[in-house]
């Protein structure tokens, strides 16, 4: 199997493949001719993005303000969740967990809300309004799958973990739209919040007795043991990075790498659409 066979195969079901690849067709031709100056060494990356561009989502690129308001909306949800939980005190959260985890996280999410609000205003934007939330994921019924979220500590932890891991994925999905010098400040800030969400995710997974990283199987991205959040983890089972199947790379123990390591070593992004589909009509009330 090689690249040209792959394209030929695609052509059988999609005669337009060369058209989709459009200007990249010249790149393909060049690969076949010796003596060209194609950076063939970069091929795994190049092939991956070639097909992604040809077949990837063609949704319009969001504006910086749309991305910031999206981030703000997610932070509203997280801060509301932790503030509600913290307000329950030791009736919900054991004192040691508050000291070692929840106080820090609650402060961070509130800070993120304030920070993003300031940034949006500084860009002459209007901060998104705070949605109505239902922490049970019941779309306002208060009777969703997590209906004891504010009375059962284990449920509270499970939802916290899903929010943090999803937050990491959501920020990661927007980075690609913030390239270029003009976006330097916003990108760096977004990456910095992204890293803090990952720290939170790691810590809460430690509390729940899971690996601090998402360890998927070939069949299932979700490693939390909570089937209701399968969608939040879908895609984490990916093992192809930049066109490279990383399970075929060598490891400490041999010439290949396990799916567990391959999925844990790379977190996967979620698109804005995917995240809204997960939240709207469940955690975010939609009339």
């Amino acid at each position, binding site marked *: *199997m090689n*690249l040209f066979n792959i394209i030929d195969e695609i052509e059988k079901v999609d005669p337009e493949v060369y058209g989709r690849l459009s200007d990249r067709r010249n790149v393909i031709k060049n*690969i076949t001719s*010796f003596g060209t*100056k*194609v*950076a063939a*060494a*970069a*091929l*795994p*990356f190049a*092939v*991956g*993005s070639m097909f992604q561009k040809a077949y990837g989502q063609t949704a319009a690129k969001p504006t910086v303000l749309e991305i910031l308001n999206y981030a703000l909306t997610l932070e509203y949800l997280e801060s509301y969740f932790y503030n509600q939980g913290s307000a329950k005190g030791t009736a919900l959260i054991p004192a040691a967990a508050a*000291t070692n985890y929840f106080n*820090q*996280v609650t402060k*961070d*999410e509130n*800070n993120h809300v*304030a*920070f993003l609000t300031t940034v949006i205003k500084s860009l002459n934007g209007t901060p998104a309004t705070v949605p109505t939330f239902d922490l049970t994921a019941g779309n306002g019924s208060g009777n969703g799958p997590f209906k004891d979220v504010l009375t059962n500590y284990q449920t509270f932890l499970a939802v916290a973990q899903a929010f943090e891991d999803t937050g*990491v994925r959501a920020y990661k*999905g927007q980075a*690609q739209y913030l*390239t270029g*010098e003009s*976006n*330097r400040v916003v*990108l*760096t800030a977004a*990456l*910095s*919040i992204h*890293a*803090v969400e*990952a*720290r*939170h995710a*790691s810590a809460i997974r*430690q509390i729940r007795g899971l690996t*601090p*990283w998402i360890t998927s199987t070939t069949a299932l991205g979700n490693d939390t043991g909570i089937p209701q959040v399968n969608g939040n983890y879908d895609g984490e089972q990916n093992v192809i*990075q*930049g066109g*490279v*199947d*990383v399970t*075929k*790379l*060598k*490891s*400490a123990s041999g010439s290949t790498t396990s799916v567990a*390591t391959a999925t*844990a*070593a*790379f*977190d996967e*992004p979620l698109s804005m659409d995917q995240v809204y589909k997960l939240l709207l009509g469940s955690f975010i009330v939609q009339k």
Partner: protein
Amino acid sequence: MKTETQEIAGGVNMARRSFLRYAGMGAASVGLLATAACHKDHAITLNNGVDIGSGDYGILNYAYALEQLEAAFYTQVILTPYSGISTSEKTLLTEIRDHEILHREFFKAALGTNAIKALTPDFSKIDFSSRTAVLGAAKAFEDLGVQAYDGAGYLISNPDYLTIAGKIVSVEARHAALIRNLISPGSFAGSDVVDTTNSLNNSTEIKAVLPIANTYLKTKVSASNYGYIA
């Protein structure tokens, strides 16, 4: 404790073979690599070290250098575990080692002939028999890695490469939070790494990261296009 271990990664020939295998290409394409021309993004090998080069490959090579350092560190940690290491600590540190090795191997495969050479570490300053020393160094490496990726992200112009960097940096942040909690419970987002006012992770420029990384490297890494020569 023994240090200055073997070369961190395989040689150039290995990288080329690997590339071909991973790209799923046949032997007919071998000649192509010989024609891959020198261009401005290409990393440079210096007498006493390497320069990451410039452009996206420069930043990816910067990441590759840091991943080589981390992989070598955890490889040593698992080869010579500190005294009193618990089963769960050893399991977690082994998993981190495996992630870092995969990050290293990924960059090597993806960069192909654009990759900098394998770096030789120098861990003579680290007492691998001491839990405090090993976890302290691990914390420093992980926090530095997160700050390095966050601080260099804006220099990546290809959106796909930026996403890949994002996929890796959050895993480094997960490592950092674990190591910090092993040292001191509740310090996963401590005020030395996360701003207390806006809760942003610190980010660090290349020219401030490499001098620290180089204290653990025999092969010095420069970034002449980003204001730092070792």
